[in-house]
C-alpha cells in the first residue's frame, strides 16, 4: 500500500452517469461554468458533446475529459470530469471511462426517476468499486417529486440518497452542492508516483500532426516529455513528445503523475499501436503487469460497408482505421461482393453503433458508402461435423451441407411504465421473444426480462420499442448463448439475378413477411427503368414473394421554353447526377436508399 500524498488529496477523478435526456451534458456544462474555466463566450451549449453528430442526436458518443479547478474553503481541488456515453451499445466505452475514475455522479431525473439504462451503468460502476454520488436533476419542473425519487434510488439501487443535491442543471440551481459532494464523497486517487509507470488508455483520437493521442489515467509512476514508453500489449516503444491536460482543450504540462488524467503523444503513426484498454509503461523500467483488462468489447452486429459509385476503397479503409483508433469495438476486414465489388465486413456493438459509424464516415470523412443488411454471427454445424461461424449470409454453406444452425440469444431487460406493458410484450412476442419474468419495480414501473434472438433485436427493435412506448421504454441486453434455430437464407433477386448484398438469414417463420416487406420496399425506392423489373425473394430456388417495377412510361420535357436550352440542359444534368449516385446491379440502377431500406423492419 502506498500512502497518498497531499497532491493526490486534491484530485478527484469522476464521471457522470445518466439516462439519455436526464441532463448529463447540461450538468457537465454547468460544472465547467461554475469552476470558471471558460469565459461565457467560449461556453458553447454543450461543451463535452463536441462532435456535431452527438449534438444533433443529443447523445454522447466519444469520451472526453475535462479538468476543472474548484476552490472551496481556501483549498484548490483538481476535478477531472470524464465523460461517458449513455447508450446501450456503448457499455464497453462506459467501462473504459469508469476504470479511469474513483467515483461517479449519478444524475436522476426528478420527474422520471431511475431508468433501466441508468441501472445498467450504475451496476457497471459498482462493479468497478466506484463511489456513487446521486444527484437529483430537473427539480425546477412542476412535476418533480424529489422525495419519491430519493426513496426510489435507495430501494432500487441500494445507495444512500438522503444527502443527494437537488439541482436544476438547466437553471443552474445548486450546482455548487454537486461540486461539494464530489470533493466530499469521492475518494481521491492513490498510487505511488515513484513506482514504474502504469497508465491506462481510456480513449484516444488521431491528430494528423501529432499522430495518435492517448487519453490516459496515470495509475502509478509518472511520465514526461522525452521518456521512452512501451505499449504493454504489443511491446512497441515510442518517445514521448508531449504530455498535457484538458482544460478542456489540450494544454501541455511538464509531467503527469499518479492520479492525474491527461494525454500523451509520442508520434504514434500507426493507429493500431494506441489501442484503448492498453497499459502504457516505461520501456526501460516496465511495471510488472498490465492493469486489469477492460471488459472486452465484442461486436455483435456485422454488415458490409462498400464504396458507393465513384468512391475509393482505400479512402474507406483509411477512415475505418482512424475510427478504429477511437473505437476499439469497431472491427473490419476486407471482403468482396458480387454486386458491390471490394468493401469491408464491419463488426459493431449494435445497430446504433453501426449507424453512428456510417454517419461519421459520411460527415467526418465525406465518404459515400453503401451498407448491406446487418447480420449477427450464426453458428453453422455442417453434416461433416465442421463448425463455421458465419457473419455474412453470402458465406453460408449450401443447405445440403448444413446439419443445423444456431443463433445468438440475448438476455434483454426492458423497463417501461406499466401502461405500455401490453405493447412491449406484443413487440417481444413478434420478435420471437421468450418471457423469463416480469417484475413491478413500483406501482408504475415494470421490468420485463426476455430472451430474444439477437437477429430480431438488430432490426429496428429499439426504435420499435420507443415508438410503442411513446419513448418511455428502455432496453439493455447482453449475450446469453447460442441456441439451435430454424434459420433460412433469404435471397433477393433483381431482374432475375441474386443481389448478394441484400441476402439475409432469417427465422423460417419470418421469411415470408420479410421477403414481402423487402420486395415492397425495393419497389418503392428503385426508380422505373426502360424495362419491367421483377423483384423476387427466394429461399433456395423457391420464390416466396414477388413484385414488379413496371417499365417507365414517361420521362419527357414537352416544351422548349423560348429557346431556354440551358434550363433544359440543367434539368438533364441534375437527373444524371441523381443517376450517378445509383449503384449498377446487373442491368438495374439501385439508389443508395434501397440498401438502407432493407435494414428497416417496417411492421404494418
Amino acid at each position, binding site marked *: 500500500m502506498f500512502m497518498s500524498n497531499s497532491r493526490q488529496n486534491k484530485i478527484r477523478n469522476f464521471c457522470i452517469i445518466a439516462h439519455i435526456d436526464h441532463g448529463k451534458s447540461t450538468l457537465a456544462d454547468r460544472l465547467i461554468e461554475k469552476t470558471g474555466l471558460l469565459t461565457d463566450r467560449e461556453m458553447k451549449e454543450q461543451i463535452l458533446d463536441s462532435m456535431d453528430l452527438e449534438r444533433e442526436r443529443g447523445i454522447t458518443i466519444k469520451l472526453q475529459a475535462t479538468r476543472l479547478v474548484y476552490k472551496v474553503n481556501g483549498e484548490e481541488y483538481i476535478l477531472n470530469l470524464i465523460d461517458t456515453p449513455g447508450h446501450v451499445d456503448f457499455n464497453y466505452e462506459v467501462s473504459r471511462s469508469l476504470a479511469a475514475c474513483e467515483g461517479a455522479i449519478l444524475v436522476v431525473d426528478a420527474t422520471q426517476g431511475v431508468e433501466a439504462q441508468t441501472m445498467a451503468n450504475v451496476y457497471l460502476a459498482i462493479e468497478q468499486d466506484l463511489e456513487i454520488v446521486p444527484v437529483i436533476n430537473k427539480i425546477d419542473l412542476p412535476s418533480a417529486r424529489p422525495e419519491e425519487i430519493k426513496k426510489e434510488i435507495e430501494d432500487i439501487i441500494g445507495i444512500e440518497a438522503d444527502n443527494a443535491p437537488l439541482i436544476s442543471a438547466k437553471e443552474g440551481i445548486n450546482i455548487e452542492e454537486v461540486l461539494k459532494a464530489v470533493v466530499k464523497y469521492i475518494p481521491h486517487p492513490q498510487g505511488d508516483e515513484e513506482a514504474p509507470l502504469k497508465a491506462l488508455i481510456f480513449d484516444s483520437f488521431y491528430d494528423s500532426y501529432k499522430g495518435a493521442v492517448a487519453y490516459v489515467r496515470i495509475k502509478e509512476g509518472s511520465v514526461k516529455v522525452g521518456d521512452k514508453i512501451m505499449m504493454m500489449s504489443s511491446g512497441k516503444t515510442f518517445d514521448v513528445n508531449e504530455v498535457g491536460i484538458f482544460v478542456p482543450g489540450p494544454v501541455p504540462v511538464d509531467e503527469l503523475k499518479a492520479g492525474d488524467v491527461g494525454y500523451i503523444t509520442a508520434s504514434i503513426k500507426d493507429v493500431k499501436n494506441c489501442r484503448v484498454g492498453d497499459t502504457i509503461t516505461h520501456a526501460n523500467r516496465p511495471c510488472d503487469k498490465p492493469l486489469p483488462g477492460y471488459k472486452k468489447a465484442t461486436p455483435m452486429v456485422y454488415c458490409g460497408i462498400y464504396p458507393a459509385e465513384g468512391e475509393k476503397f482505400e479512402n474507406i479503409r483509411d477512415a475505418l482505421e482512424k475510427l478504429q483508433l477511437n473505437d476499439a469495438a469497431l472491427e473490419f476486414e476486407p471482403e468482396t461482393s458480387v454486386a458491390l465489388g471490394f468493401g469491408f465486413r464491419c463488426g459493431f456493438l449494435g445497430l446504433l453503433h453501426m449507424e453512428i459509424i456510417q454517419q461519421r464516415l459520411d460527415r467526418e470523412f465525406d465518404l459515400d458508402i453503401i451498407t448491406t443488411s446487418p447480420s449477427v454471427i450464426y453458428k453453422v454445424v455442417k453434416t461433416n461435423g465442421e463448425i463455421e461461424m458465419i457473419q455474412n449470409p453470402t458465406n453460408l454453406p449450401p443447405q445440403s451441407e448444413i446439419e443445423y444452425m444456431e443463433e445468438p440469444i440475448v438476455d434483454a431487460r426492458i423497463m417501461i411504465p406499466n401502461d405500455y406493458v401490453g405493447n412491449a410484450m406484443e413487440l417481444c412476442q413478434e420478435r420471437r421473444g421468450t418471457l423469463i419474468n416480469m417484475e413491478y419495480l413500483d406501482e408504475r414501473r415494470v421490468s420485463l426480462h426476455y430472451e430474444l434472438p439477437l437477429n430480431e433485436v438488430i432490426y429496428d427493435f429499439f426504435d420499435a420499442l420507443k415508438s410503442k412506448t411513446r419513448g418511455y421504454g428502455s432496453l439493455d441486453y447482453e449475450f446469453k448463448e447460442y441456441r439451435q434455430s430454424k434459420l433460412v437464407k433469404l435471397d433477393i433477386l433483381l431482374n432475375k439475378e441474386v443481389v448478394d448484398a441484400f441476402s439475409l438469414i432469417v427465422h423460417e417463420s419470418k421469411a415470408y413477411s420479410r421477403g414481402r416487406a423487402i420486395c415492397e420496399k425495393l419497389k418503392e425506392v428503385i426508380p422505373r427503368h*426502360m*424495362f419491367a423489373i421483377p423483384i423476387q425473394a427466394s429461399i433456395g430456388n423457391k420464390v416466396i414473394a414477388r413484385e414488379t417495377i413496371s417499365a417507365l412510361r*414517361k420521362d*419527357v420535357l414537352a*416544351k422548349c421554353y*423560348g*429557346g431556354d436550352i*440551358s434550363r433544359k*440542359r440543367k434539368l438533364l444534368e441534375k437527373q444524371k447526377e441523381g*443517376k450517378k449516385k445509383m449503384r449498377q446491379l446487373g442491368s438495374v440502377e439501385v439508389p443508395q436508399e434501397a440498401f438502407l431500406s432493407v435494414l428497416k423492419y417496417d411492421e404494418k
Partner: protein
Amino acid sequence: MKEVKKLKKIGLYIHIPFCYKKCSYCDFISFKYNDQNIDQYVKALLKEIELYSSRLKKYKVKTLFIGGGTPSALTIDKMDTIVNKLYKSLSIESGIEFSVESNPGTLTKEKLEGYLKIGVNRLSIGLQSFNDRILNSIGRIHSKEIFLRNYHTARDVGFDNINIDLMYGLPGQSLSDWKDTLEKVIELRPEHISAYALKIEEGTRFYDLYLQNKLHLADEEEEREMYHYTIETLNKQGIVQYEISNFAKEDYECEHNLIYWNNEEFLGLGLAAHSYLNFCRFANTNNFEEYINLLNNGKLPVSTKENKSREDEIFETMFLGLRLTKGVNVNKFKKRFRLNPLEIYKYKLDKMIKLGLITVDENSIRLTRYGMDVSNQVFLEFIPE
C-alpha cells in the same frame, strides 16, 4: 451581293411579357397588362434593338418570332413600332417566316389585318382545349366560340399559315375530351399544331393545388394514351409529327423553332429572353425594373452568360436534334464536328437500340415511339462525363 451571302443567319425572338391574366399552368415571367408598363417596356425594347444594330453587322435574320406572354395584348401601333425598328436596325431577309403568338381573347379583325400589314405571315393561336369548362378551369380568358370566330377571321383576312397550341393531360380532362378537341381542330385544317403535355411547374397556381392534392390529373397511362392517339390521328390527317410535341403539314414546320432543335444561332430580345450566338448562351435579366434601367443607361440587359465548349455543343446538338422525328443527321453532324456520331456513341447507341429507345440508319439517329415517351433517359446518355 457577294458580301450578303457571307452573313451568318440567325433566328430573332422578341419577348412580350404581358398577359391580361396568368394561366394556372404557366410559370413564365409575365406581368399584368397595363398601359404604363407597356410604354416603358416597348421604349426599352427599342433601345435594346438599337444596341444590337451595330453588334449584328455580320448577321442576317432568317426568322422572326414574337412570343410571350401575350404579344397579341399589344396594340397594333405598338407592334408596328417594334417591327419598324427591327427592319430599320437589323438586316432581315425578305419573305422570311414571321410568327406572332396570340391569345384568342385578344384578337380582333383590325389587329389581324394589322399583323398582315406589318409582315406577319404565321399566326400562332393558343387554344389549348375545345372544352369551355376546361378552358375556364385552366385560367384561359377565352371560350371556344371566341377562338372559332377569330380563327375564321384570320383565315378571311388572309392568314394561310396558322398554328394552334393545344394541351393535354389537363385537370379534369378525359381521353374522350381530348379526342373531341383534336377532332374539332383537325376540321379547321390548321397548317401546324403544337400539342404539349401539361407539366406542373413550381410557382404556378396548379402547383399549389397539386400540393394540396386538389388537382385531378389523368394518370400517366391515360396521358400517354392521349399522346399516342395525337400522333396517330394527326399523322393520318397529314399533319405530321416532326418534333416530340409539334405537328405540321408538309413544308409548314416552324422554321424558327427548327433553329433551336438544330442547335443553330438565335438572338432573343426582351425581358428574360435567351440567345445563342458565337458559342455563347446568354439570357436577359428577368427583373422588369432592372431591364428598363439598364437599357435606359445604354447597357445590354444580359444577366447570365455561358460559353459553350465543343463538347457542350456536341451534347446539345444531340439532345436537341433527337427531339425531331427525323433525328440527328449523321452527315450534318460529321460536317459540323468532324466526328462520326455512330462511332463516338457506338456503345451507348447499341445499348439504347437494345432497349428499344432509338433506331439508327446510315444517315440518322432517331428516337423510337417509346424513346419519345422517355426521351430524357436517352438525352442523359449523351451528357459529357
